Each structure stands twice: as C-alpha cells, then as structure tokens.
C-alpha cells in the first residue's frame, strides 16, 4: 500500500454487527461489555445482556411480544406502504431502497400499529422498527401513528407508542416534516379528550420523532442508556466544537434534566405499564 492509500484507508469500526454475529447466530457478542453470549440466553433475557445490562435493540415483533399478552395483538393498516412521490435519488432510488428494506426486514414500513391487551387491559399500540430505514418517519409512519391515535380516541383506549428512530425520512422531503405536525395534532385531540398517551423511548429516538410525538407522552419512559435528543451527538459536537459531557443525551441524562418520568429496565416495563394504566383507570 502506498502512503496516500494508507492515509485514505477508512478506519475500520471497533466493532460491527456483521463481525460480531458469529455464523449460525448461536453466539452474540455484547456491544458494551464484549461478553460472548449464547443467543438463546440473550433472547430469554429480553435481549438484555445478563452481564452488563446492555439493552439490545428489539425489532417491532420482539417488542410487541415482550409487551403484550400472548397473541392478543391485532394490527392496523398492515399493508400501508410508502411511495416515491418525489422520485428521490441519492445513492439509489428511494423506491428501490424501500423494496430492499422490505425484503431485508420483512416489514411493510418502519412502524407497526394495532391493538391488544397488556395485563388484560385493552390498549392501542404503535411500535417503531429501527430495522426499516432506521425507523425514519415518512408519510406512512406519520399516517399510521395518527390513525392509531384516532382509533384510540374513538375506542377510548390508552395509546402506547414505542419509538426508535433517527428522525424524519429525508427521501420524502417536506412531507416527512409535515408528519410531525400531523402526529402532534392527533395527540392534541387525544389529550383534549383525556385519553392517556404513554411514550416509551428506545435507543435511539432523535430528530423529527423526538421533536413530535415521542416527547409528548403524559408519561415518558426511557429505556436504559437509550439515546434520546433533538440533534444527533455528532452534529452537536461539530456545532459547539467541544467535548460532550459523559452520558449526554442518554435516558439517565434526560431523567436528570427532567425530560422523562422514569428510566425502566426492559424486564420491568410491563409491570410498570400495568400499574400506570391501572392508575389511569383502565
């Protein structure tokens, strides 16, 4: 390798999902403590590292399974899909990207909505999925969340949203920004009619999602160490040109600054939600 090649060489990440996924998916290495874990044990522990307590990301399917009773979930609008209405091309066509993500994730879009029971209590639920284009919010995510809120209002059921998203979906341009207004308006109507909304903030929740429905819970619950904020840490670092404080924008940091009601470990989430719903009269 020449000197210039050496300079241009991209630094390889200290760890990456590909490298840590040992073939066969039998074993997984914890991102935080690097402990090698037996995948089945990890799954049995709700995907929380038994050694250091690191919360792995959950897919929407896994999340619903950990939250709701048995097979009580029935989905809303499962066939709603995004449209490449701007003909947006970055490194590839948005339409193509959508198809690839659908194939890869087995999901139609970045949020799954529906209703089910939680400790026997009927709830409307929306769960975002980071595996579909980083959980970004375009027209479909906005519409499905809005409809879930509208159904919660109509059925007078509490609404629970589990967020995990990088923010607005740039490939839908201004329309993705408008979803912030749309979802927040729907929550305004819910609030006016005294229907509770519980927001669960999973890693990460930033940008247009945190600056709309995700921060508007009557109760905001953070998952341990979840990154939650408006701007991403890299953007902030580049703007202010100083080192960010330790734990910056993590759930615990938000708790300290009064932005979430509590930080709840995954194993405790269901009982805490049941207690809250009970207090709220459901």
């Amino acid at each position, binding site marked *: 390798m020449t000197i210039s090649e050496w300079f241009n060489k991209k630094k390889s990440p200290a760890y990456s999902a590909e490298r840590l996924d040992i073939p066969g998916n039998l074993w997984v290495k914890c991102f935080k403590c690097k402990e090698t874990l037996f995948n089945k044990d990890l799954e049995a522990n709700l995907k929380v590292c038994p050694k250091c307590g690191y919360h792995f990301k959950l897919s929407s399917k896994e999340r619903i399974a950990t939250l709701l009773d048995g097979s009580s979930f029935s989905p809303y609008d499962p066939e709603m899909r995004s449209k490449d209405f701007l003909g947006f091309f970055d490194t590839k066509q948005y339409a193509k990207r959508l198809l690839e993500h659908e194939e890869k994730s087995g999901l139609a879009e970045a949020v799954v909505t529906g209703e089910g029971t939680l400790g026997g209590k009927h709830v409307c639920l929306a769960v975002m999925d980071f595996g579909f284009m980083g959980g970004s919010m375009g027209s479909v995510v906005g*519409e499905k969340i809005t409809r879930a809120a509208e159904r919660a209002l109509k059925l007078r059921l509490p609404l629970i949203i589990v967020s995990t998203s990088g923010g607005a979906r740039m490939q839908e341009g*201004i329309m993705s920004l408008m*979803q912030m*207004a*749309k979802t927040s308006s729907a929550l305004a*109507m819910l609030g006016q009619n005294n229907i509770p909304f519980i927001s669960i903030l999973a890693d990460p929740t930033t940008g247009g999602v945190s600056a*709309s429905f995700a921060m508007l819970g009557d109760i905001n619950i953070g998952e341990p160490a979840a990154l939650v904020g*408006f701007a991403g840490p890299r953007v902030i670092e580049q703007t202010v040109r100083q080192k960010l404080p330790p734990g910056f924008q993590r759930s615990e940091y938000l708790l300290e600054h009064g932005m979430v009601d509590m930080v709840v470990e995954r194993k405790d989430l269901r009982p805490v939600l049941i207690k809250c719903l009970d207090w709220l009269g459901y």
Partner: protein
Amino acid sequence: MQNRFLLDFERPIASLYKKIDELKKLGKSGALDLESETAALEKRIESLRREIFSSLTPIQVVSVSRHQQRPTTLDYIGQIFEDFVELHGDRYFGDDRALVGGFAKLDGRPVMVLGQQKGNSTKENIFRNFGMAHPEGYRKALRLMKLAEKFNNPIICLIDTPGAYPGIGAEERGQAEAIARNLREMALLKVPMVCVITGEGGSGGALGIGMGNRVLMFEYSIYSVISPEGCAAILFKDASRAAEAAQNFKLTAKDLFELKVIDGIIKEPLGGAHNDLKTAADNLKEALILQLDELKSLSLEAVVKDRYKKFRNFGEFIE
C-alpha cells in the same frame, strides 16, 4: 440604491456596477454629463437581473434565501406594523434573542407577531445566534401565542431560521420537547394563525412556529426537512453535492405550492427582497391582510378544525 452584495451567479452584474462607479468618478472630475450612460447601464443591469432571476436553480434560490442582506423579521415588523411592543422571555429560563415577538397592529388591527431573528452582520448574527432558537425561544413563542389566544387576536409568524439550535444547553433544556409541545399546542389555538417563510424554513426549527391556518412563502425563500448541505452529507456522503440535494428535495416556494404544502407565494422585488425592502414588505402586508380577512369569518371552533384538517391530510402513501 440597488443592493451591491452580489451572489456568485450575479457576477455578470458586478462588472456593470463597476462601470457605473467609474463613470461616476469621471463625472465628478470633469464636466461631462454621464447621466444618460449611467441610466443605460442601470437598465442593462435590470434586464440582466431579470434574466438571471427568471431561471434560478434551487441551490441559487437557497443562496438568495440566506442572503446576508435579506430583510429580517424586525425589518418587516418595522415596515409593516404599527405600535410594536416587544415582549421578552419564556418565564422558565431566559429570553431568546433568536426569536422575537410582541404586540403589534396591522392595518389598525391588533395582532401578535413573532418570528426568528437573524442579523445582517456577523456581530448581529452572533447576538441573534444566526436565528437559531433555543428551547426558551420556542417556549416564548408559545407563551405569546397563548397570550394572543387569550385576548382573541390573530397570530402572525415570520419564519427565517437555519433550524433549531443543536447545542448542549439546548438539549439539556429539552429542544425536542419544546418543539413537540409547540406543535401540539398550535393544533389547538382558537385564533387564526398565518405563517410566512420569509427566508430559510429550516426543518423542525421552522415548523416549531409554523402550523398556521395559512402558510405562505416568499418567492425566493426555502422550506425543507434538512438543509441541502446536511442532506448531501448524510445521504450522498458528500456535503459538496448540496446542489443535487436541493434539486431532489423540492424546497422552493414554487415546488411546495405544487405539492400543496403551502397556500401561496408572495412576490419579491427583482433580484430578491434585499434589493427593495419596501416593495417586499408591501407585498407581505397585502398578503397578510388578505389571509386574515379570509380567516376572520371562522368561528373559534372552525379555526381549530380548519388547521387540523390542513395538517391531517399531509402524506403520500399506498394502501
């Protein structure tokens, strides 16, 4: 006097200005009458400007919208409104100088006017944080909106910001929460609200005061989910491809009107608002009066419904 802060693509005009300056110098030293020649040159500048501005690319519109001399919110307030009383502070933490507002009268009618404030010089811009508000700015805005609602007066928002400020303090004090709350509360305001993007409509920072019953844009303003540079850096992994991103994004007034995201376009004087503040301000005033007149007849409930309907219907998807 025409504005001499020229943008890159206005360079052909610069040489004509230089000629005018030379002629003026000559005119001063000698007894020559160069008025007719100067006038001819000025005419050529005008036609050249017209030509250039008749076919601006999106990235060129972006640079007009960010022009250093572009009129600011306080410039417009000074031109259009009477009896402006600036109100300060969010009552929680502080007063954000990047977002100004207060009581004013428009054509004799009491209104609440507010908006992000940029500066026309580096010093001013630092004082105003380049029009990038902190949470206290958004909370002040909400306080003023609620005040307007309490006394049943319409709200006018003038939007001009690169975005909400991404900083440590802003995050600690809940930038996301402040914007989110504004969105929710704006949905419920029982008074008419008209928003105008006068320069840059930067993402959530713009939308945070942007949920009007009517949303208008100046001809050379922009409104987008992320800056073209930001988009290029993230999606193309190359910030220098901003022009391409701008093209892709549909962020000009014309594009957004076609997408039905905005309700109207306010004409700008030739060469952009900074060339003729008075004309730009007059056009803005006329548009605001027209919109408020239209909304006047709506009942309190109808105002809320009208706004809800407008924002409820945004989205393109397949079912």
